[in-house]
């Protein structure tokens, strides 16, 4: 079984690549932009806010969405015969693996 059609290939690749990139974006703080909620300050990349806490969550999502959209568009545009390997199950299996990886990454909170 394979992901038939360009949109199918796009959706499967997008879900899988997003899940992988998002994990590494969080683990390494690859945020496209940052936000300081106390003063309403937006900054590019991971610059700390001038006052109060800095939020990177929106930036991690943006980084991952951009990367996933790029790769998924590329895969969707490839000729059909080059994408025979793309199993639809990657759409749930890779995000499920990412969920497990996050549970491992943040396990410290549950061991205190």
């Amino acid at each position, binding site marked *: 079984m394979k992901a038939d059609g360009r949109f199918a290939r796009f959706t499967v690749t997008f879900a899988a690549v997003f*899940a992988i990139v998002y994990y590494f974006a969080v683990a390494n703080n690859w945020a496209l932009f940052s936000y300081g909620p106390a003063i309403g300050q937006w900054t590019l990349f991971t610059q700390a806010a001038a006052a109060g*806490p800095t939020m990177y*969550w929106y930036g991690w999502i943006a980084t991952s*969405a951009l990367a996933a959209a790029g790769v998924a568009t590329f895969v969707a545009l490839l000729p059909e015969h080059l994408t025979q390997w793309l199993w*639809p199950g990657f*759409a*749930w299996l890779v995000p499920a693996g990412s969920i497990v990886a*996050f549970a491992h990454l943040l396990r410290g909170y549950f061991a*205190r």
Partner: protein
Amino acid sequence: MWIALVITHGLVAFLLLGAITHQVVSVWAPVRAGASNFVARFRAVGSANYVNAVIVLYLVTALLGAIIYTKYRISARLTLEQGGYWKSFGAFELKEHFIALGVALLPAYWYFWRSSLAVDDTRTRKLLTTLLAFVVWWAFLAGHIANNIRGIGT
């Protein structure tokens, strides 16, 4: 305004929880005919009818959550940290990541439910729906617990 947003967020999340739970139960334990009691009728819903509702409710809930998150970050989160509620804190941290992963699942979820309902895709549909249901349940419970510890306005 924040209290109204939190309440709206909770209500929309509750609708989403109902829709995705109906759908996940109906894909794993469908009842084709003769739904004679409450549980059977719960299982007998048309799974495909929930797709658009789940997607819209998920996006609205996530958007409201993303707005409220700024307030959580400068108030409620400090209470969780200072009070040493580390398991609740960790559950909420996981929630934010699971929600992001769930958003990225939605195009595939939509495609595999709306394209053809082909038999070949049955397992993909079931597991995408199950994973989304897990994300929604986790987010609902973690958010509910965090709100019980330190709701906005308390």
